[in-house]
């Protein structure tokens, strides 16, 4: 017989975790989070909901596993190559006019997209005057990002994405291969600050010219989406850029009037001047 945790029970767990550990998932879209909680419940073979709940409440280490497993950490380099060519063509020339460039990559997971953007900056000769703040709720993925070590098995796909995004170098010149893994060049990581940040509970920490947050908002409910979009608005300089995932949009949100979408099909918006 297959055990299943229903949405009410999932809410109990999320309230426990929010109250006891400060990680608040109660405003996440329910269907996806229920699926992930059930997945963990079955993978770790708990005989009952009560024992699962007890373990989460009483074992902080296991609670961290819970937090890490129910958040999605799937990512890839140069995901949606056309998005990166749009950044290259329409956003980088504007960023180039600033003496110092500050970028916030929110919900960066293991950092593949952060390194992708660092490569764009490098090729536009802007990396030396840029800092990318790469944040995620999950500290263990940040550790991976900091190391810049990724499986070599992915490189063929990433190299293809890179070329489709308009890359002109030999992609393999950006990393050193070592058995099953590659390590990306230190000069890229030097300009990236990996740091924990919880979009639900933490506030603004700087003003940026570009905020990238892709495939994070889809996991939030409408009110949390609005709250986070206001955080982004407050964290952008006038005329700063906000880049979202390919199925995310500012349409029908409460900040829609405060931004203008760039005149292409990509999900890039620019904050109004006033």
């Amino acid at each position, binding site marked *: 017989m297959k055990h299943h945790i229903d949405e009410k029970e999932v809410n109990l767990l999320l309230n426990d975790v929010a109250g006891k550990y400060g990680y608040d998932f109660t405003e996440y879209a329910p*269907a996806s989070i229920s699926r992930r909680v059930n997945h963990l419940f079955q993978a770790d073979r708990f005989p009952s909901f009560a024992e699962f709940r007890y373990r989460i409440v009483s074992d902080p280490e296991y609670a961290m596993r819970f937090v890490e497993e129910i958040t999605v950490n799937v990512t890839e380099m140069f995901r949606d190559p056309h998005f990166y060519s749009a950044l290259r063509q329409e956003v980088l020339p504007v960023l180039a006019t600033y003496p110092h460039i500050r970028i916030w990559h929110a919900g960066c997971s293991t950092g593949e997209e952060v390194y992708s953007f660092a490569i764009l900056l490098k090729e536009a000769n802007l990396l030396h005057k840029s800092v990318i703040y790469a944040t995620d709720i999950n500290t263990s993925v940040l550790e991976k990002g900091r190391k810049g070590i990724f499986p070599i098995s992915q490189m063929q796909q990433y190299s293809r994405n890179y070329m489709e995004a308009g890359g002109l170098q030999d992609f393999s010149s950006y990393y050193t291969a070592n058995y099953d893994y590659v390590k990306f060049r230190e000069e890229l990581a030097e300009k990236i600050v990996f740091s924990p940040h919880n979009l639900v509970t933490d506030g603004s920490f700087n003003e940026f010219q570009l905020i990238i947050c892709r495939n994070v908002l889809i996991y939030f409910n409408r009110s949390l989406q609005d709250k986070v979009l206001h955080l982004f608005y407050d964290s952008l300089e006038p005329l700063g850029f906000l880049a979202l995932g390919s*199925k995310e949009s500012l349409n029908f949100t409460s900040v829609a009037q405060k931004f203008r979408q760039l005149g292409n099909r990509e999900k890039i918006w620019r904050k109004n001047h006033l």
Partner: protein
Amino acid sequence: MTASRLIVIGGSAGGLQTILTMLPALDPQLRAAIIIVLHRYNQPQSMLEDVLAAKTNLSVKEAEEKEPLMPGVIYVAPADYHLLIERDHTLSLDYSEKVHFCRPSIDVTFSSAAAAYGPDLTALLLSGANDDGVEGLVDVHDAGGITIVQTPDTALVDFMPRQAIGSAPVDHILDAREMAVFVNTFSNGPGI
């Protein structure tokens, strides 16, 4: 008002052909919503919605996150995202791990539709070469929904329907035209 009944259709290799046969036979006044999950390549500008729209008077659109499921509308799962249904009858997208090497996964959509719609759901599993969707049919059945599998002899690739018939509780085994008739009856039948 969101649609009070839902039909979810899952297919892989050969599934599109079945859907193209079904669509012209659907009632243009359909009162249920339809969701189609097809395994497809990730291309930024897909023609799939256009191909489907040419075969029906019902409106066809790519599913968007937070969108409410409306009666008489056909929603197509976007490439490279899982599509889930919330209890308030809105849609969610999810970019988590592939399931059975697939994203969108038919299992993911079937299972979440089962939780959201219970007995007001019919799931149709069509032609295909893998077994994505089979577990989802079990969840649909357990939640009181109706499970239908394409007659294997009429499927371009019969592996998926045969897997389903072999290991899931299947209420009906139908060909494309019979499925269209069933969908019309289920959508506009009593109790709505």
